[in-house]
């Protein structure tokens, strides 16, 4: 048939980037922001967003030189086979770990809020299999699913942000920069991890066709989560104050529980919100799942990734189930986030090497 190869449209690129960033972290971010920078996080988040924009830009620059290769392939071109393979392996491991942690946090929230007696494993496995079903159908299906779910999720997030505004109290922010700008800056790395996920552009370049404006749309794809996260943290802290925000485990959920829905068809808005959050987590998980399968396939110089999705599924499950309790999950998540930052920094070095090599030639 017209194997309209797996080509993505502009909007699909945007939504794929959004969905790989915007997911599980949305629940945790207000707390980690309040912990890291208090009321100053209102500045920290846009700054962290800006920094991730810069990294994204570098990534896109390097990508544009290898339009038909993903990061795992062209890194080997630049660094040589051995170093490149090590770096690619690190990336793959990182992606699998993130996927596992996302799955775990997702399942923990669902279990805690909706299904207290259901075994964690069941929630994780059902999610993983559903995600695998999507992955098996290729990037075009993945991007279409993101394209369908993301607009809904964005709208629901905005509702979540704007509905409880009557409780909002701007004074919660007043001692802004009470200790100078420093705490706001120190919090940046911790908050920066919330925007990880934009690496996906390094995996979808081969699927973007010539007439795609990948630069503009992936930028937009990063900017939208940055804006929503900023608004979200703004609302949560404005309603609960820094103390309560950092005290509760999922502040975003607390906001949802605090909403009295107009028309009162739903007594518990949190469950209503959770339903859409399942969609968001699903697309984030699927993005990471896809990236890791693709990257392991390319690491082994193979053109088909589907068998690796099957191989990776139990691995992701094991990584997810491994931490004994929620505290450990969050600690791991933080560490994995730092690994992500490390990978990005190494990437910048690789970019420098590439530029030098190019200059040499």
């Amino acid at each position, binding site marked *: 048939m*017209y194997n309209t190869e797996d080509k993505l449209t502009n*909007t699909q690129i945007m939504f794929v980037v959004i969905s790989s960033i915007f997911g599980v972290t949305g629940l945790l971010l207000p707390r980690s922001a309040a912990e890291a920078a208090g009321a100053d996080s209102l500045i920290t988040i846009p700054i962290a967003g800006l920094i991730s924009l810069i990294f994204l830009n570098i990534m896109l620059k390097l990508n544009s030189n290898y339009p038909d290769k993903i990061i795992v392939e062209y890194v080997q071109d630049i660094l040589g086979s051995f170093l490149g393979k090590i770096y690619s392996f690190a990336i793959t491991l990182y992606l699998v770990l993130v996927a596992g942690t996302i799955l775990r946090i997702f399942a923990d929230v669902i279990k805690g809020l909706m299904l207290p007696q259901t075994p964690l494993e069941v*929630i994780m496995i059902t999610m993983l299999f559903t995600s695998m079903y999507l992955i098996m159908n290729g990037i075009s299906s993945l991007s*279409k*699913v993101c394209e369908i779910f993301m607009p809904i999720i964005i709208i629901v997030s905005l509702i979540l942000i704007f509905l409880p505004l009557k409780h909002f109290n701007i004074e919660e922010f007043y001692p802004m920069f009470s200790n100078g700008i420093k705490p706001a800056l120190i919090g940046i790395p911790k908050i920066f991890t919330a925007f990880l996920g934009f690496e996906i552009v390094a995996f979808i370049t081969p699927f973007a066709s010539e007439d795609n404006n990948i630069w503009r749309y992936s930028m937009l794809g990063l900017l939208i989560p940055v804006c929503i996260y900023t608004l979200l943290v703004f609302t949560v802290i404005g309603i609960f104050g820094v103390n309560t925000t950092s005290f509760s485990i999922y502040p975003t959920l607390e906001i949802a529980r605090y909403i009295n829905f107009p028309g009162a068809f739903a007594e518990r808005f949190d469950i209503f919100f959770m339903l859409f959050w*399942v969609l968001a987590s699903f697309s984030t998980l699927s993005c990471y799942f896809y990236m890791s399968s693709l990257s392991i396939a390319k690491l082994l110089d193979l053109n088909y990734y589907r068998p690796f999705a099957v191989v990776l599924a139990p691995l992701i499950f094991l990584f997810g189930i491994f931490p004994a309790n929620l505290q450990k999950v969050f600690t791991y998540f933080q560490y994995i986030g730092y690994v992500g930052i490390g990978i990005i920094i190494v990437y910048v070095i690789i970019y420098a090497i590439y530029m030098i090599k190019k200059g040499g030639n």
Partner: protein
Amino acid sequence: MKKAGNIKPEEQVDLTLSDDINENLAKLKAFLEESSDIVFREFKLGLNEIHCALTYVDGLIDKEVVNNHILKSFMYQVTILEDNRGKPIDNSEAFNGVKEHVVSIGEIDEVVTLDEAMHSILSGDVVIIIDGFNKFISVSAKGWPNRGITEPEGEVTIRGAREGFTETLRFNTALLRRRCKDPNLVIKGTKLGKRSQTDIAYAYIRGIVNPRFVEEVERRLRAIDIDAIIDSGQVEQLIQDNYLTPFPQIQPTERPDKAIANIFEGRIVIIVDNSPFALILPSTFQQFFQSPDDYYERWMFSSAIRFLRWLASFFAILTPGIYIAIASFHPGFIPTELAISIAASRATVPFPVIVEAVLMEITIELLREAGARLPKPIGSTISIVGGIIIGDASVRAGIASPIMVIVVAITAISSFIIPTYSLSVAIRMLRFPIMLLASILGLYGVILGFIIIITHLVTLKSFGVDYFTPQAPMRLKEWRDYMFRLPIQTQRYRPKSLSPIDRKRKGN
């Protein structure tokens, strides 16, 4: 040893025609004589008494035409002709003479093989055999009982043409042709079914439709290798992209106005003889929510109705699942008063919600199917009386709660709102797995089911067109005719997903 009667004639008979009429007739009779509806009429032509024969199927021909324009001509016309010329027709010029001077019918053809001859006999032509020629004349005198053009029953509209397709291919193509005088409207024909030799026509407008669709349709039609095609439904199943899905990827229609509108949009319509359902392809998911009168009524009204249908499809799939999830997992989701009232109404019900729901849903499916199969006046009585009585009685007997009855009724009504039957069936079926998931995992199960359905929809294609356009891939320009139907004034282009050659539909 095979018995003589079981040996197929083609195993004994040489299929080439000879000059000798008796030999030809014998060959034909070997095939056809056993059937009582085949008529062989032998007679002598002109003064030279040339041996001729007519063969046709009684019932497929118009007797009037055969008597007046063939037999009568042979008997009278020939004598007048011979009189005028002053010499009899001799054997050598008989064939052309008959063709040119005798038979006063428009559609006339020469047939050179036995195969062709039999085929034209069986499709309602009259075949004239003349001694001394190894070819036959086939005259079209088709005329058989038909239902006439009636209002389509499956796709009722408030406004719009009352004509529906009928079982005769030619009438159907005529219905299309009457709606489009563009010479570029191509209606190509082919035959399908090794034994049934069913006529198939596919229509499209050259210059609008993307040729790759035509090629693809032709390729897929050619690839069909089956003994008989009874209805267009079989063709649909044989040429669709994916048969492991509940969702129809080709849209059947009984309405010529709908068919031609889709042709104008750049699609292809397949018409199968003996079936009043034409097939529209490629079809996307959103098309199944369209009804022709959406386009004939004012746009605000149509948009509201269109949106209602989408809502109804969600209700039809999700309502029972959501109810089960809420009633057995998340009673906190609904307002206190409602939760208490549901709890009170379920107090006497001995089953878990899922059992109650499945029982009631199966009951309503039974009623629906019984209503559909019975004669029309009884059918509607059955569904109304059965619905009311069973609903009321099961509540009184404590088998179901009143709220469950409401849920089931809403689901059923919602599934009937979807204008296309084939999708409505799919949606009705899908609510059972969702109910099952809901009873295991609550609302999480429902949303999981929803994700799986969406994922599945997204992977589907209809003749290479993404099934879920314009939602994914998102084409905002086509949203003008999607969940809402915006004014015709704004719909200036044909859907891009069909990549038509001529995109422009309307000037400024």
